[in-house]
């Protein structure tokens, strides 16, 4: 297959675009990211690699605002993300300028996915090496939404999804444990999914909560508190499981 993976504009005989698939590989190596949609909240969580001591962590924002009511997290090549995010932010303002309305989540997702697709069908360029999770509230209906895009340019809406490292484990966890939640319960579900694959603690997770009022980044102390709650619940569930068995001995 080596002959068909050099250029993006070449299909392989069995219908693969190898460059796009290699881009998906890059995504699989990126940091873990999870998104969960509730009835009145959408939550984004991203893994933070905490090994770099001298780095000023405030300059590494993994969850970004595209507009007042839209936020984005991604997994993959962060430099590619900067370009996409910049273009998306311009499009958000341009849309407001031309039609005097904020974008819907679907519109901006379609725009970003469209950009990613364009780079799978041009000469001399490579695809963007990232998948995005886009959350927000539609301006007038107030309905929360979660979308995902990937390097091939496909996008779809999700109740909950994960991307990046170990995304399969997170997705399995979400499939088993997802239910309609609201407020703090949604935040807990997102963090629980992330904790499946990430070392526990506020230092290693970045979480942002989008409500009708806007985006709120949780600080380390808040995350630590929720993590502690989750661990307590887990311990209680373990104890309850062992409890009846212990009585028998």
């Amino acid at each position, binding site marked *: 297959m080596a002959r068909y993976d050099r250029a993006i504009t070449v299909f392989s005989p069995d219908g693969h675009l190898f460059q796009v698939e290699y881009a998906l590989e890059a995504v699989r190596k990126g940091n873990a990211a999870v998104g969960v949609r509730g009835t009145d909240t959408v939550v984004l969580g991203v893994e933070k690699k905490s090994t770099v001591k001298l780095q000023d962590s405030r300059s590494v924002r993994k969850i970004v605002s595209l507009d007042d009511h839209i936020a984005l997290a991604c997994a993959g090549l962060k430099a590619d993300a900067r370009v996409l995010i910049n273009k998306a932010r311009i499009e958000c*303002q341009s849309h407001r300028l031309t039609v005097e309305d904020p974008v819907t989540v679907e519109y901006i997702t379609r725009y970003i996915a469209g950009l990613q697709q364009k780079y799978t069908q041009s000469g001399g360029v490579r695809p963007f090496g990232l998948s995005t999770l886009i959350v927000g509230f539609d301006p007038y209906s107030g309905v929360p939404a979660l979308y995902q895009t990937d390097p091939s340019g496909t996008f779809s809406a999700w109740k909950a999804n994960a991307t990046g490292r170990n995304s399969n484990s997170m997705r399995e966890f979400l499939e088993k444990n997802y239910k309609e939640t609201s407020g703090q319960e949604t935040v807990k579900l997102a963090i629980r999914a992330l904790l499946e694959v990430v070392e526990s603690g506020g230092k290693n997770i970045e979480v942002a909560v989008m409500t009708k009022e806007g985006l709120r980044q949780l600080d380390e102390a808040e995350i630590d508190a929720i993590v502690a709650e989750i661990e307590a619940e887990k311990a209680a569930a373990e104890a309850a499981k062992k409890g009846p068995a212990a009585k028998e001995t």
Partner: protein
Amino acid sequence: MECVFGMVGKGFALVVADSSAVNSILVHKSNEDKIMVLDSHKLMGASGEAGDRAQFTEYVQKNVALYQYRNNIPLTTKAAANFMRGELATALRKNPYMVNIVLAGYDKETGPSLYFIDYIATLHKVDKAAFGYGSYFALSMMDRHYHADMTVDEAIKLADQCIEEIRSRLVVAPQNFVIKIVDQDGAREHSWRRTTKD
């Protein structure tokens, strides 16, 4: 004839604009809001060609918002004023915007400030500014009664005196005026001065 004026007080800045939308001898409406809230702590009172006014002010507002998303920090009033001047200057020798602007803002580090930006891209940082035929009366009134560090009440009283002068001395005086204020708590509408309903 359109009229916009503004002044700086102690810890705040005020912008006053008429609210008539006129086409030759017809008054389309007398509740047109010509003072745009640029962001949380900036007010932009604009007068001039109606289409240019809307186009230019909205364009500036969206670019100021974009800057904030890109850089996670809002533009200072001075930066916004210079951006506007740059846009006006670039368009001047091709397709000029016929808009005159009084920009008022509050920055945490530097306090309130007022900028005079006219349609040929003049930029001045000032304590009091006015545009339109009403400026002849408003500036004279302010020259006589303005002093540094006025309170909100004193400034409103002075604004009212200016409005009174404009109403009584200008042959086609605008009917209604809107007053907006910006201080450390943000930019907001203060009050209206009406002689006609709507």
